[in-house]
């Protein structure tokens, strides 16, 4: 199993969600985060003092998929989340040791 973590621009979340649904992904977790890569931020002036906006709002989504499905899911996320402007985000893939469905106790592939 692989866990795919994608940090994307917030306004792209609906598109990515639909793309994942078309790939047959049945669940995902979303959190609101802040961050920056090479995009960096910008400077505002607030009441005469500089106000550096360097952390930008992003959305992080996490999905767990079988190893075989991972490449297609990654490509689906990329296509949906890409704008071509800097700040589109990143995807990280992590190998997963175990997954458990709490309600039934199912493990492994049955839990995803």
């Amino acid at each position, binding site marked *: 199993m692989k866990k795919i973590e994608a940090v994307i621009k917030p306004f792209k979340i609906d598109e990515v969600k639909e793309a994942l649904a078309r790939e047959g992904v049945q669940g995902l977790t979303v959190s609101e985060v802040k961050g920056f890569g090479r995009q960096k931020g910008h400077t*505002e*002036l607030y*009441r005469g003092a500089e*106000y550096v906006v360097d952390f930008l709002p992003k959305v992080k989504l996490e999905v767990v998929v079988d190893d075989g499905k991972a490449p297609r899911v990654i490509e689906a996320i990329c296509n949906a989340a890409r704008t071509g402007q800097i700040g589109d985000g990143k995807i990280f893939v992590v190998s997963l040791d175990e997954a458990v469905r709490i309600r039934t106790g199912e493990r492994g592939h049955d839990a995803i």
Partner: protein
Amino acid sequence: MNREGKKALPRARRTRLSAMFGLALGATIAGSLATIASTAKADEPAAAPQLPAYFTSTSDPKAPAWPDPAGGAAGVWAAPAGDGKGDVPEKLAVTDLYDRVAHNLFSINFVWALVTGFLVMFMQAGFMYVETGLCRAKNASHTAAMNFLIYPLGCFAFWAYGFAIGWGNWWNGPVPPGWYASLGPGLSVLNGGIGIGAAVDAAGNATGAYTYGILGTKGWFLTSSVNDVSVMTLFFFMMVFMDTTATIPTGAMAERWAWKNFIIYGLWVAFPYCLYANWVWGGGWLAQMGINWGLGHGAVDFAGSGVVHAMGGVLALAGAMVVGPRIGKYSKDGKPQAIPGHNIPMVVLGTFILAFGWFGFNPGSTLAGTDLRISFVVVNTMLASVTATLGTLLTLELKGLKHDPSMMCNGMLAGLVAITAPCAFVNPIGAGIIGFVAGVLVVYGVFFFERIGVDDVVGAISVHGINGLWGVISLGIFATGEYGAGWNGVVRDTFVKAYGADGVRGLLYGDASQFVAQLIDAGVVATVGFVLGYVWFKFSDLITPIRVPAEIEIEGLDIPEVGAPGYPDFALHSGGRSLSG
């Protein structure tokens, strides 16, 4: 200013020290006042002044009608059973009609002063909103609590000693010839005070007043000697004004001012306010500059740009300097860092509440609904608030800055502060100009104080201090002379000949001496207010620390200082700098 390295005395010793301080100070003050009061009795002004004719039916020299706790002496209301004449026209004499008309006049004035005073009291809510909105969420409860508690603290102090100092010798004030107190002759019981010299009138007879009034000494805790309906109205109206001054420093000093130190400040602030108020409004020497030194009509301040706002602003400056900037406000190389407020809609709502309340603040200061100049006062107030906001907008635009709502709100308030002194004496064009200049000044003021290291959380020093002084000075420039004939007892033949009446007029309308009087007035409030404030804040720091420890400041003052979190449901940023963006 880094306070972490400072060594404090052990707590027990500090308590003993402060107790001794307090006792010594209290004893000295009480002793001096007692001595002065007893010597002042020899100079005590005469009884109530000559009354206009329509009071003859109610005033009996053998049984003075004042203080009047029930309101019957200021003219008699038609009492069908009481005086046997009731509404039977045939039985009424002309003096009875005068009585009833006089009573009506006073009634209108009472209602006016009281209801406008209610609006001013509500401004406390406006200040609370503006200040709480501009501080961080972790300090919301503490900032709101300061703005709340300042009302009871200030009111108590005003009741205990402030009113007496400020208005206890109101009768000493130079008044225009033929003038009657809009709230009734009962105010004449306010005739105890301290001053220098015995004033004489044009004929050389002693008037019973001091040449230079310094402070009042009658009316502590509003005891029976001043239990008069007119005095109560004046007390209430002046109290809500004092509370406006009292709450101004809480804005500049928010987010690091220790609660206990704030409390003793709240009980003290009536002192500088009422002292200076006595000089301008209570029959003191600044008002008397006209008759004493020929400077215009003396210091003129209609609703208190100087008395209320400049005083509050310089106290805020002194306090902000003593308490020091917030942690994280200035980077290591001294560059100011932005610490955005947590709730801008609150700031805007607060500004609207203040703007609304100002429609009580300014026109109410006629203390007379029967004085129809109130319509000019209202329009001047409104126009100044509006042009000030536009002035701020233009300044921000020309500086290439975005139209920050908090700055625009400061702009509107700056205009209101600036028009407060001249509102009755200028025409709408003058009001518009005064407001516009205020809107520009406040932007530069905020940037200036940021740059020189004074951390003013809400811009109070720029809004109230700088524009309070501008308001006082602008009166000396733009007053048209149409209103205020005989103000502060000044009637100059040259002006009467030239203009028909000697109204309050400024530089642009032919009276440069008024401008000089206003400059002196501004200079006095700036220096005296700042010195008193600075000395107090330094002294109070010895009694109880003025600033919270660093860990508390970083965590947020809500729970440590007042025990109640402002937003318990939310995870708040705790740290020197919030995650921006």
